[in-house]
């Protein structure tokens, strides 16, 4: 397996949607390729960081204001 072939299957590996045979091929490639190992680990970390950090917070006062506006309109039938 080449690095390009590995990268083409990177998402399937991360999303755990590869067959056991392909997984074995990918693992086999990883053992001899530091480049792809780093790419895999740091791509996983990238997703994890974006999942676990709120970058657009909705402050509670704004949330309540927007919420009140929405519900007031809904009660009037929009």
């Amino acid at each position, binding site marked *: 397996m080449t690095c390009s072939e590995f990268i083409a299957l*990177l998402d399937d590996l991360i999303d755990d949607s590869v067959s056991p045979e392909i997984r074995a091929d990918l693992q086999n490639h990883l053992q001899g390729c530091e480049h792809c190992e780093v790419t895999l680990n740091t791509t996983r970390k990238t997703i994890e960081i974006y999942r676990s950090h709120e970058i657009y917070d909705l402050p509670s006062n704004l949330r309540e204001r927007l919420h009140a506006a929405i519900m007031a309109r809904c009660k009037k039938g929009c």
Partner: protein
Amino acid sequence: MSTIQTIAGENEQHPDVALVERARAGDVSAYDTLVRKYDRQVFRIAQHITQNREDAEDVMQDAFLKAYEKLEQFQGNSKFYTWLVRIAVNESLMRLRKRRTGKMVSIDEDVETDEGSVPRDLADWSPDPEQNYNQSELAEILRKTIQGLPQGFRIVFVLRDVEGLSTEETAETLGLSIPAVKSRLLRARLQLRERLSRYFRRKKGDEK
């Protein structure tokens, strides 16, 4: 154990369905519950697309009001959340078009880039790279980095990886094919990774 969070079986009803039915029957408090459940997600998606706080506030209100108006049209064969996200994405794109009058805003244009190919940068990251920054610095880095992605990649990454939609739901929401979603997701993930490396790469003296 409860299976609420797993994909409901064919005969199992998602808890939102009962709330939607009550709201349709005129129970505003049921809709109130749905708004509170999903307002943060809608606001976040609107911010990611419009990249403007005031627009995101307007989108959030408009999306929930539009969803309320159209509740009769909700079929129940897709999840309420996915249906709501589709409304929020459309409202966000409309808002962008208004702001950039005359300029087409589209998520289906493909962007030519070679950044989906094998990465050139081999730098590994520090063991816990986010710990080198405080919360607000980190949020700024993450915002700046994702804002630099092409729009069509950014939306796919946000829906799929941040908001947790499946590939199929993302494709349906954006009106894209499944291969198009997959290709954009791979390129989005690799580009973000490459751009974050600037901040998170292992420095000399970091422990292995």
